[in-house]
């Protein structure tokens, strides 16, 4: 094996990388608590994420309009992805203002060394141009992503996660995100 790896390191590592990433995820919890949960897009699933975090026994706070100051004393940023016109309207935002908010938040997280966990819990029906544009910008910042499988039918998440070496966990439905979420935290 060692001779093989020495001879063909890159192809072998690339082939093994999904297994390695999966194995890494299984063996190592990537994140610490407390967790700040917010959305990128003012979607309804952010509430789901909060319920999952509660059921997972995590120390978390939900702030739908979180900005950099809300990262004080936080160890992880949970970003629930998905644009909702209804949610944006209710928050008095448009997509541009929301994008600016999340940019500011993720920039501050980067400065503080706070890792980002991305979630997409709405499935296939919660994909669309605005959501995809938002996700294309913020998903690459993630240290890990948990998504409902039907939302990845076209490989959107797989492509970005593979490119950026982000461990990707797919679940059949939002409720099944509970275990991967629990395991992701120390």
């Amino acid at each position, binding site marked *: 094996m060692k001779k093989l790896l020495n001879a063909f390191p890159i192809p072998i590592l690339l082939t093994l990388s999904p297994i390695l990433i999966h194995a890494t995820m299984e063996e190592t919890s990537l994140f610490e608590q407390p967790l700040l949960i917010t959305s990128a897009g003012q979607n309804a699933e952010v509430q*789901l994420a909060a319920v999952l975090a509660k059921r997972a026994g995590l120390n978390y706070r939900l702030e739908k309009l979180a900005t950099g100051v809300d990262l004080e004393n936080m160890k992880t940023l949970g970003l629930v992805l998905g644009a*909702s016109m209804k949610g944006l309207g*209710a928050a008095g935002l448009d997509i541009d203002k929301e994008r600016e908010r999340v940019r500011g938040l993720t920039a501050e997280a980067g400065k503080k060394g706070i890792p980002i966990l991305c979630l997409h819990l709405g499935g296939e*029906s919660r994909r669309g*141009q605005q959501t995809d544009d938002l996700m294309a910008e913020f998903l690459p910042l993630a240290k890990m992503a948990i998504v409902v499988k039907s939302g990845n039918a076209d490989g959107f998440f797989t492509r970005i996660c593979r490119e950026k070496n982000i461990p990707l966990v797919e679940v059949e439905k939002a409720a099944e995100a509970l275990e991967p979420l629990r395991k992701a935290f120390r």
Partner: protein
Amino acid sequence: MNPKDKPSSLALSLAIELLVGFSFLVSCQNQPRVSPPPPVDRHTPVHYIGRHGLVVAANPLAVEAGLDMLKSGGNAVDAAVATAFALNAAEPFASGIGGGGFMVLYLAKSRQVAVIDYREKAPAGAWPTMFKEKGEAEDHWRTATGLAVAVPGAPAGWALALRRYGTRSLAQAAQRAIQIAEQGFPVSQTFSDINKDEYERLALNLEEGSCYLKDGFPYEPGEDYRNPDLARTFRVLAEKGIEEFYRGDIARRIVAAVQAKQGILTLEDLAAYEAEEVSPLRGTYKNFALVTAPPPASGGLHLLQLLRIAENWPLRGWGHNSSLYIHHLSEALRFIFADRERYLGDPHFIAVPVEKLLSREYAASIASAIRPDRALGSYPPGEFDNESDRRSNTTHLCVIDREGNIVSLTQSINDFFGTGIVPEGTGFLLNNQMADFSSSPDSLNAPAPGHRPVSSMAPLILFRDGKPFLVLGSPGGTRIFSSLAQIILNITEFRMSLDEAIEAPRFFSYSVGGQPRPIALESRIAEATVAELRRLGHEVRVREAYDKYFGGAQGILVWRDRKIILGAADSRRDGWGAGY
């Protein structure tokens, strides 16, 4: 329809469409007890055909209930109530006995039109500043607490309609709904999406183990939903009548649930509720006559205003959904919303200047004020004395029976899933219709004891040459009358078939305090059109391709003295139809 059009050209295009495969025909014979599969592409125009009768509604199981009633000899009113009951079971998030609505009836023998108003009422303890004084938490109190619950009108409305114009009992009308609630069904994508959208309010207000969530999480498409509590409640209503709802055990449970969530509804409020029969609102558009529900249903009034204004313009010359078309109608809508803010309320208590609002002179003045080259930026209301000349979500259904009787019915619990409050053991959701009152205590539509909040609903029947031509309605909150106007213009001006007209891309705008809000439009509208609208000075918000924000219309087109009855339903929700 333009009188100059040759009827044969429309008939020919309809025939071609039916035969050559833009539509597929849904057989009305031997309907299975499970929902028939939708077409592969739900957005492809689909027409349902009947010779004797037809039902269109926002859910296939509800359509089946209405059609069964027609085929068993019930009339249009019986079928409409059966469908309404079934919608409560099959589409529980959009309407039901915890809400209210309006029903427009056409009685073929007498050629009379009647309207049943079963809009919810504010409790006797309501006061104008009840929400305003909550400050930043106002929106929460208006939508997610017991204070948001208005006295439900649906059971009373359905019972009144059956008593006066039906041939079946409430118990008979409830039978299929009981089965649907008891046996359940797999949840659709629409149900799942809406369940997710409203999750926060449901998680706040539902009891643990509620059937409106699956183990505390939103339903995924295909998961089984059952509501045995609702079935039991329907059985109680079937056995004991609506007295049980307004004065009996159900009433006590409603009051307990509302007051546990800081509401003010009392047993006396429920006992005092009455649905009523009122005169329809009538108007015209070119050579069509239109009947609809009057205020407090404002939708029909504003729809007529919009059509009146549009009569002044060369719509066909501008082209369907061209920038000029969207610009002019959006500007008109902004003026109409200014009138709505200024003049609309419950006509039992305030005067609504309906005739002045609908006058051709007023419409012409608005049409001439609108500039073709830019958005105006300011939209004052009309100036009228408040002389009396008369006295929103949501779902819609249409029925026509073999005698030609027609029902156009829109009903609601306001927001999807209403307050999310379910009286213990009853299975039905309570409305948050109090949110339809104005936030401003000075408004004619401010909360007040016994007032019915202004509604955007507009169930309607369009007549041509004195005969029913189009039955139509839609949910969609404040977008209702804009969407219905566009559908009517799609048919009358742009010669679309009924379902093409319903599926065509929509837009909407409004004003608040005389200031314009953005034009919202579906992404299927051409990018060049969007760019031109921005150049005219509009802010534009592009939404999804088929966005339920713009409603979920259902319609029936009656052609050639009922020799052809076509139905169509909106793919933006789970619209369906069936005829026989």
